[in-house]
């Protein structure tokens, strides 16, 4: 962790709730405003500027962070957003989304593996993030969490599974409000190792289009993640 002093903070040019922290040596880093001051989630740096605590957002650890670093154009998650997050894992990205949506927003965090979800409970729930609803369930069967989840503005998926575009669309059919957005992190390698990344990206995007979504932004995540892309879509 750097010992360079932070000197200034600016809100992101386009996205509310996302910040650039400027350091003494002229470097800048992505950050969000800490919803639970004093607490870390994954060993990230905490920075206090003007009485506000920020958490540095590591793009190597979070794909949404990587996409913003690579000039994502549309960011449907803002203050007050309701988000269905499939593949919450240990909660790295969820923690920043939780910072962004704030207490008027809500994140339904679905994860299938008990092992990583135990970490999630420690990282997110025990830290007192009240805007997160933990759901240990299989995203392939959206009816499993029908009692918990209500209409969401954004459905986000980051699971290492084949057919993730289909899983996302199935969930969107049930839970996404009219005019809502989807965000899909495509991990080419985990979908099909035998195919070239671009081919896999195309196949997943075709699935999304077939299910009635327009692709409005696609960002490759190099150098933060190899053979990954983040896709933003919308259905009216």
């Amino acid at each position, binding site marked *: 962790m750097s010992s360079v002093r932070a000197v200034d903070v600016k809100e992101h040019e386009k996205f509310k709730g996302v910040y650039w922290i400027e350091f003494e040596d002229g470097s800048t880093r992505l950050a969000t405003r800490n919803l639970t001051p004093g607490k870390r989630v994954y060993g990230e740096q905490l920075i206090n500027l003007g009485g506000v605590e920020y958490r540095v957002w590591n793009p190597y650890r979070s794909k949404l962070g990587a996409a913003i670093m690579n000039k994502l154009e549309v960011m449907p998650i803002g203050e007050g957003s309701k988000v269905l997050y499939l593949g919450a894992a240990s909660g790295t990205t969820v923690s920043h989304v939780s910072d962004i949506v704030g207490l008027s927003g809500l994140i339904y965090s679905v994860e299938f593996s*008990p092992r990583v979800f135990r970490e999630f409970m420690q990282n997110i729930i025990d830290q007192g993030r009240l805007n997160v*609803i933990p759901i240990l369930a299989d995203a392939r069967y959206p009816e499993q969490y*029908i009692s918990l989840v*209500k209409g969401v503005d954004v459905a986000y998926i980051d699971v290492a599974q084949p057919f993730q575009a289909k899983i996302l669309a199935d969930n969107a059919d049930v839970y996404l409000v009219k005019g809502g957005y989807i965000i899909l992190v495509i991990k080419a390698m985990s979908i099909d190792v035998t195919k070239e990344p671009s081919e896999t990206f195309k196949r997943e995007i075709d699935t999304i289009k077939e299910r009635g979504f327009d692709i409005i932004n696609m960002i490759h995540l190099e150098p933060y993640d190899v053979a990954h892309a983040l896709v933003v879509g919308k259905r009216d």
Partner: protein
Amino acid sequence: MYVSSTVYLVLDALGIIALRDDGSVVDKLVYDYDAQRIANMLNNIEVGKPTDELVGFINRLAKAGVSTVYVEHKELARNLTNIIKGIEIKAELPTKVGRLFREEFWSKYLKEIYGIEPIEYIKRVNEVSVIQTRLKLKQAAERRDLFIAQAINSVDDLDKVSNLVASRLREWYGIHFPELENLTRNNNEYAALVYKLGDRSNYTKSKIMEALPELGEERASRIAEAAAKSVGASIVEWDLQQIRSLAKLYLDMQTIRENLTEYIDDAMKDVAPNIRELAGSLLGARLIALAGSLMKLALMPASTIQVLGAEKALFRALRGRGRPPKHGVIFQYPDIFRAPRWQRGKIARALAAKLAIAAKADVFTGNFIAPRLKEEFMRRVQEVKTIYAKPPPRKPAAKPAAKPHGKPERKPGKK
């Protein structure tokens, strides 16, 4: 009472709502708020098990003249159909009305049905879902400990059997190539050579290197040399075939063993992360197997954990013959078996004490406290090593004396 004879059920965390197809509310059941009870109910509904409340609610609808009910859960609808007569229960995901309900939940239905603010609703759903998740995490861990116990016992069985097979293999193949016996002590290498090369005449340096690159040039050429000068009996393919299949069996068992240990390690991360961090996954699994289950292990005092696996010695000591054992299976812990004899008991006691805490944390709280426990344990190990660096003087009397008073002399540093 009801206008429509078809209604759409919407399941919520805090109640059940029946809607007409225009989205207007027909009837509702708001649960008395008890997070623990609701969490249990939702866990049942989720896997398709009808709750008393749900059955009662649908019966109420049937009495009021409703003929068809839509539920957004296939399994649940099927099980309801088996219980409830006189009303048709259909499944559809999502229903048009369900979508509408969720879409307008925050702006309209939340207030209309519960009369509470979004912040209060979110607080309650959060509370319920957290309890639900913890219950599920616990269940996921509870059952698997028995699998782990079986898996670790299988590892021990495999070791026993593969040692038997290996010694038979060495004896049998030794008739043909007796010199190989002393050239490799490692059973894996031996079996791989027998399986891949077969007849002694195949033992050229290049073929050996190809079959088992990890041997290294030097050893490969020594084996090749020995093969060329071997005094063993010659063998025909027909005889050799049987020996090779035995070698194959040995190699397969090793692969299974590797997979099993990987499986145990993964499962231990889930079931007993604290024990795993403290004692390692294999030793931790052995303790669970010896105790019978993770729950039983968690209910044991540290002194019992210390001698798990040394029952024979323990009961011999209790009957008054011989001294009590210092350690059972935890002897396998490197810091214990590498320590000098007189330190082992002290280290074993310290480890058992920490393991007892770790097991309780794994079963009851689920908190990951192992790093702290491990640090405390390592500190105690260092302490034992400095304070008891020299062996204690031999006791003059044959009968064990009463506990000596005062602290033993401090002897800083190692010998």
